[in-house]
């Protein structure tokens, strides 16, 4: 008996979400490969530089917003169903959020890809941050709003299951998988307030022409209200995998249940009031609020550093149970021949590196050294592009067999895949960080100086060498992505049917829930605290911005 046989309805929902996620991953990843060749100038024959931004928007939206959201939905359906041992309460409701999200995704994707139609009027080359006054077709914003509404309903679905479960189990502690899901969703509700106000309140009326002018700073600020918490919305499901599943894949048990819960609570509280750290270089926001955001951002290092300890300790526990010894030698006893483990472990290592460049980004003034340079995509390809994406891919090797009731095919290719991803990403992001230090901007089709006889001065090495490093890294990543999609597709369609395609048992933590204080499960308390901190960070500056009118000082729209 595996998940499919116990919970066939939930398995179907999970699978539907995964299918959408993997299609978005394939398409978005392919766009990324084209970009790697285009912006380095290695090969610019696929598209013109003017069309580059359509691809860039597609890459960002499909991977950062669509792949993540759908995969997370699939993962959480699996986790909530499994840990509460109940199918979704109402399948009509469950399928309706899936279809609302999917319709929204299709609308956004059509608006973006419309930009590749010559002389077409449906365009959305506004990148995934869609800062006005650059204007996309209304369909783009409406699609995003639908994805958002669908994701809210998905969260409501999981809370619904939880309430029903609570009625039947009034004294039990919240199972850890459900706990992590609910806290991630609580954080999502807090941070998407900003996005909802921006998209529904400002951008949709504006793109439909009901209002003409827009004040650029207000939607930008509302975007970043959401925009940093969203990275934790991607990251927390990766943590979810590292806490709940990775210890077992390592041959051990989760080190501490209470630490896990504390980490998720801190993320709920601190994720949103940090948004100004994306606006250190903005006029119109006073230094005091920038400093407040830096302090909360730096405090957010704490849960990640705690995660580092707890997760590595859980892996070490596994390695020692497998016979590992010494201070360092135990690492060799970890199952480096299992793709699911290898992917998660390498993703974790990358996250440690990405954590460092994130610390630089968080430093209010040192941020200017790298603000909007290629360093930033270098950073988030380590975090969301590897820590999150590689974890999701790796855990698919373990989840998809449970959802389909089929064994994994091509295990050797599956094993090669995370290593190639790690290699490709190191090459690409290493060069991106270094190019960023030399001042090479992000988000541009042709980063070279065109008409002035100027050049960027790298600290060491040459621009040419970095360009090849990025292009080769991007190519290796594409190969890795193809391997992943091949393994998953063939296993999904033609894997050997089995009652037990993987060992899906998850052992109890070392320090279990019996050691965990009850207050940690008090969702109302932590949610209220999160709202208070958000109000402290945002109420005054937002109020100040709308003093002169919500759309003033107004700028005219510029169709992208």
């Amino acid at each position, binding site marked *: 008996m595996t998940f499919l046989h116990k919970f066939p309805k939930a398995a179907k929902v999970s699978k539907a979400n995964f299918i959408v996620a993997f299609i978005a991953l394939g398409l978005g990843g392919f766009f990324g490969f084209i970009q790697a060749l285009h912006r380095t100038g290695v090969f610019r024959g696929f598209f013109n530089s003017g069309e580059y931004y359509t691809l860039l928007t597609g890459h960002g939206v499909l991977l950062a917003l669509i792949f993540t959201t759908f995969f997370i939905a699939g993962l959480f359906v699996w986790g909530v169903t499994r840990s509460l041992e109940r199918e979704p309460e109402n399948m009509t409701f469950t399928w309706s959020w899936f279809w609302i999200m999917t319709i929204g995704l299709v609308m956004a994707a059509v608006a973006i890809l419309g930009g590749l139609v010559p002389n077409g009027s449906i365009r959305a080359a506004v990148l995934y941050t869609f800062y006005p006054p650059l204007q996309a077709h209304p369909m783009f914003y409406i699609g995003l709003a639908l994805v958002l509404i669908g994701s809210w309903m998905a969260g409501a679905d999981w809370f619904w299951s939880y309430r029903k479960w609570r009625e039947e189990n009034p004294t039990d502690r919240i199972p850890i998988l459900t706990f992590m899901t609910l806290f991630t969703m609580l954080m999502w509700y807090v941070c998407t307030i900003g996005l909802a106000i921006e998209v529904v309140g400002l951008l949709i009326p504006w793109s439909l022409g009901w209002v003409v002018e827009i004040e650029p700073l207000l939607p930008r600020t509302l975007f970043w209200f959401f925009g940093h918490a969203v990275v934790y919305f991607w990251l927390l499901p990766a943590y979810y995998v590292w806490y709940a599943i990775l210890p077992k894949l390592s041959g051990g048990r989760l080190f501490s249940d209470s630490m896990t819960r504390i980490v998720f609570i801190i993320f709920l509280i601190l994720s949103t009031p940090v948004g100004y750290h994306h606006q250190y270089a903005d006029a119109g926001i006073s230094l005091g609020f920038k400093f407040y955001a830096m302090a909360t951002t730096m405090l957010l290092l704490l849960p990640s550093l705690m995660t580092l300890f707890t997760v590595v300790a859980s892996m070490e526990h596994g390695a020692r149970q497998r016979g590992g010894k010494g201070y360092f030698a135990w690492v060799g006893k970890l199952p480096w021949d299992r793709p699911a483990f290898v992917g998660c472990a390498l993703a974790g290592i990358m996250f440690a590196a990405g954590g460092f460049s994130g610390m630089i980004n968080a430093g209010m003034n040192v941020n200017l050294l790298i603000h909007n340079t290629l360093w930033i995509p270098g950073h988030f390809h380590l975090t969301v592009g590897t820590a999150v994406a590689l974890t999701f891919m790796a855990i698919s090797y373990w989840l998809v067999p449970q959802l389909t009731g089929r064994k994994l095919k091509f295990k*050797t290719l599956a094993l090669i895949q995370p290593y190639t991803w790690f290699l490709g990403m190191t090459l690409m992001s290493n060069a991106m960080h270094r190019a960023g230090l030399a001042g090479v901007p992000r988000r541009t089709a042709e980063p070279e100086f065109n008409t002035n006889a100027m050049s960027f001065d790298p600290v060491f090495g040459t621009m040419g060498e970095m360009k090849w490093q990025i292009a080769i890294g991007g190519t290796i990543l594409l190969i890795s992505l193809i391997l992943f999609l091949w393994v998953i597709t063939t296993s999904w369609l033609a894997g050997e049917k089995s009652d037990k395609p993987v060992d899906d048992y998850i052992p109890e933590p070392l320090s279990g829930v019996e050691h965990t204080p009850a207050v940690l499960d008090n969702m109302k308390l932590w949610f209220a605290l999160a709202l208070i901190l958000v109000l402290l960070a945002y109420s005054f500056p937002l109020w100040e911005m709308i003093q002169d009118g919500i759309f003033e000082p107004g700028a005219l729209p510029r169709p992208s």
Partner: protein
Amino acid sequence: MTNSETSNSEEGSNKTLVRTLIIIGIGIPVLVELLTLFNLVNVQIFNDKTDQVQRRSQPDQAVEFTEGDTLFTKSNYPVVISGMQINVSAQEWVFELEFRPSDTTMQATPLVKVDSLRLKNGDLLRRGQEWSASQSKSMRWTLPNGQVPVKLYLSGKELITEDSVRNIHEEVPLGSIPVRYTRKTQR
């Protein structure tokens, strides 16, 4: 490729594979990062700014033409680039070029022609436009999105006598062309 992980021969080849993967997949990344760290610290702290002089040497700049410059200066019918701009909208990129006769244009009816444009990506845009050098002329090209012209190929027909014509060809490398946003007008 088999799914079995227990057979001994499989185990052996698996070990070799894992070792290779670790050496390539983790070894190279670690090496790259260590080299980066070493070079950064080495350049910044130990031989600070040795390449300062070298890095500012700029490539030799060819003479580039921009708005206001005169072409065919050696002939007796020079023309002036009186306007040059790229108008960019979401849908299309349009290159607009305007010539007027120079004050020193002597001959009344020589014909001048823009044969083609060389774009930055190397493509050639052929669409000849011919006019009399004694008159002003404006012309426009629709560019592939994102491309800018870097060179003009011109030719001139100079009447030496009543019935003999001399052809002159000129390559005009273009300097910085202003690129401006325009709302596309519906046509």
